[in-house]
């Protein structure tokens, strides 16, 4: 989709006067059936994930897999050398499953480490980071999103997106300064 001047359209955005009105607007956009859209506010808004209809993120599943990988890695790194490669009697402790308390700290730490790394990198992937620039920055007013502005943006790549319908929806939900944002 292009504007009359020939620029590709990223989406259409609106500014809202308060967190509460943004919250109500999000529910309307959700109920209208849009999928590719987002809200921006200077602080987290309780209940917004429900209002947007986001559902459960897959981050926890990724972290669980990461944690289990860490646990297995630690098990391999401790049992492998001390039972099979270099079996040594240290501090009079036996070489059997009863030595396992000595390895618990390593297992614990690697579980935590792998979980944390997975959470961090999965978060980056989910947010499409790192990236240096975003089309929404073409909208001057949007710089207030980190200060006192509440914004809702419907993207043009949403299958349901038409400029007229999106604009009407944002107007009806109380949005101000409704602006078509260029891709480039």
């Amino acid at each position, binding site marked *: 989709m292009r504007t009359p001047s020939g620029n590709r359209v990223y989406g259409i955005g609106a500014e809202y006067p308060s967190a*509460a009105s943004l919250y109500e607007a999000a529910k309307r956009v959700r109920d209208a059936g849009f999928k590719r859209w987002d809200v921006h506010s200077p602080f987290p808004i309780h209940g917004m994930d429900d209002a947007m209809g986001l559902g459960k993120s897959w981050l926890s599943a990724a972290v669980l897999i990461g944690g289990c990988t860490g646990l297995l890695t630690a098990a391999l790194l401790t049992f492998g050398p001390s039972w099979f490669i270099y079996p040594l009697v240290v501090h*009079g402790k036996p070489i059997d499953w009863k030595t396992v*308390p000595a390895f618990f700290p390593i297992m614990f730490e690697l579980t935590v480490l792998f979980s944390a790394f997975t959470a961090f990198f999965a978060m980056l992937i989910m947010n499409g980071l790192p990236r240096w620039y975003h089309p929404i920055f073409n909208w001057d007013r949007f710089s207030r999103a980190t200060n006192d502005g509440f914004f809702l943006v419907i993207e043009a790549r949403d299958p349901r997106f038409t400029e007229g319908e999106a604009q009407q929806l944002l107007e009806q939900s109380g949005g101000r300064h409704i602006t078509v944002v260029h891709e480039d």
Partner: protein
Amino acid sequence: MSERSHVVPTPEGEYFEKSRFAGLSFIAAIVAVVGLIVSIIGAIVWPEQFAYSWLFGFAYFFTLCAGCFFWIIVHHAVDAEWSVVVRRQWENIANLFPLIALFFIPVFLFRHHLYEWMNIPPGEDHLLDSKRAYLNLPFFALRAVFFFVYFSAVAFMFRKISVRQDRDGNPASTLKMRRLAFVALPLFALSLTFGVWDWLAGLNYKWFSTMWGVYIFAGACGSAMSLTVLVMAALRHAGYLKETVTIEHFHIMGKWMLAFTVFWAYIGFSQYMLIWYANIPEETDYFILRNTKSWNLLSLLLVVGRFFLPFALLLLRSTKKDTRALCMVAGWILCMQLLDIYVVVLPELHRTGFHLSILDFFPVLGIGGTLVFFYLRLVGTTSLFPVRDPRVIESLRIVN
């Protein structure tokens, strides 16, 4: 901001009708009387077994009440929002401390069966003589008095101010309770730590562990939160707090149960591993006794039952968001707390292996029955939640 209906509590609050639960009170009284009478007979016939069995029952309920006490002061100290609607029940349970103090009297009377150090005259054991500054009878008694006066008085003050706020709605009461909590918090840490050192770790005067107080604390707080879940679910089942305590509150309580399950395991393992690895005879004695012979089975059951099982279950959001499932886990944790205290106390008597005595059951029943009976009397005297707490609306609408 939630999608739930915006409930505003009536200024009168919700009241528990004692008359509806006269049957329950009666059963509790019967259990208490039978438990206490059999315990008294046991004390005459078999004083040594009685001493340990009673200490086991006493310590179990002491940890539960101390845990509820802890949650009150933490609620005020951190100015928590979600726990406003459950706070009144913590206040009620913590107000049972005068009874706990009363139940300490048999422990004190039978101290010679429990605490070996009291029977050894000075000059016989150098290890003990070097600890005499702390381990002597007058100081032991003085400490016990201080701990019980502290717990009872502070729990009483919290409930009194909180109930007064129900009437006058004065927000200054909240600030007053917060200031009291700041004073109570460090004193709680000291009282619980030294209390369980005296009464539980003191069963073997040679042994010492700096983790001991934290270990009991971790178990106490997790099981007190489990008890809260059960009490809230029971009140809801009886038709109270339907609009007040929501699934969101249960979710938060489930998170705390998970947190304290992990914390208990972390502390328990830290204590075990340092002693196991250092291998110093005066420290290892505690674990040699509990990790050999038939006691080992109970110790292993504790590790699986108090950590691995609830950890796996509570990790799932579906468990924490389902009252029924959460209640089952909470009940299980309370049973495991019972096992934990059992494995702390009873091996010191039956050093040759696990030996279940019939007398082990009756002090638990007697003390538990009495506490339930008095709890049911206490719960009806005020609203079931602090109706005019400044943050009660926020607590009602909590979403996490």
